[in-house]
């Protein structure tokens, strides 16, 4: 067991964890924040994407011990966040989710796009979103939602 101290959505917790515990399982099973979803657990689908020290990472292939000292933001921690508020509205308006399982990771990835790549065009948005799998939407609504927020943030 290793002791880690992690700040999740502003709350700092110190806990002993097995080294093999993934950050995703720490978030879901130990902190009961079940909005972070596990889609593949081998770093392909992006459903588990969270912010670690402000940057998106895949929590399924990041061990919790490695997150010692880090600030983690999960989907439950964005309620005061401006780009996320814009994205949620745009996802809602553009029918960018159906079953909702990929949505938390998709939103964290989308937030990275609209904040890091303000000039992204559709092709770039599609490329940047390619790290997050959605099985329901054919990506049409998701791409449109991200483009809408990029546009809103430019004016």
């Amino acid at each position: 067991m290793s002791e880690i101290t992690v700040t999740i959505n502003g709350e700092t917790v110190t806990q002993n964890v097995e080294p093999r515990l993934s950050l995703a399982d720490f978030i879901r099973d130990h902190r009961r924040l079940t909005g972070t979803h596990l889609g593949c657990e081998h770093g392909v689908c992006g459903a588990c994407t969270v912010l670690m020290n402000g940057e998106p990472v895949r929590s399924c292939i990041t061990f919790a011990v490695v997150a010692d000292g880090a600030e983690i933001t999960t989907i439950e921690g964005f309620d005061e966040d401006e780009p996320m508020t814009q994205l949620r509205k745009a996802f809602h308006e553009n029918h960018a989710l159906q079953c909702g399982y990929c949505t938390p990771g998709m939103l964290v990835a989308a937030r990275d796009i609209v904040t890091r790549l303000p000039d992204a065009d559709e092709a770039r948005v599609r490329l940047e979103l390619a790290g997050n799998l959605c099985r329901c939407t054919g990506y049409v609504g998701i791409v449109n939602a991200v483009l809408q927020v990029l546009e809103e943030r430019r004016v």
Partner: protein
Amino acid sequence: MKSAKFDYDRAGTLDDALATLGNADGEFRVLGGGQSLGPMMNLRLAQPDRLIDLSRVAGLDGIDASGATLRIGARVTHARIEDGEVPGETGAYMKYVATGISYRSVRNRGTVGGSLAHADPSADWPSALLALGGEVVIAGRGGERKAPLDGFQIGPFATGLGYDEILVAVELPQLSDGTKWGYYKVNRKPGEFADAIGAVVLGNEVRAVCGATGAAPFRVDAIEQKLATGATELSIPDARDMISGHDPGFDDYELQIHAVALSRAVGRAFK
């Protein structure tokens, strides 16, 4: 899809990490960003007994362009390179390569040193940096040594790194502005591991690398000679012939896409 049990060390210093590695009684692995090792451990394709985390070790994440060569610390992430932290023409080339590695959430964690040491045959940096030329800087209990990138990777997931050594940096030539380079990947999906890589850099020396070969990337001397003598394009049939000369064990399609990758890398260099 959970890792097997392992022990974990968060090394405070490089010496601590080297000492732990030196006394290894089992499979000890150095943990960089963990973006290749993590999936392999979750799939239980890798089951190390102990991980040595270098994230608290100082001095591994610098980018130093002050000398004749460019020194990039092993823990520099793909994302930092993508964001342009490496200066000059070498930086432009590396930025281009970094942008195509996996996805941003992986690039935020994955590191240059980790990629070189892990030596996945389909990964970008082993091929891309071989095309630059340069050396890896390796720390051992007896001090530092340098090894040329030529010959550093010896096969799939195999390098010249000793079990008790740690790759701490890579030293690369500073390309002069306007140096021609081209990099082209064939992959089933952007962001996934490459099926074929072509990398050409026409710096002080001309280097043309055939990568994602299933084994170590290799330089194609016939293509280098052709480019060194003024050629500005490379046809696919010529590329096929020249790659075949290295007897890479490709089937017909593999030969084709590697030839396409090199042909298009040359095309990009002279575009």
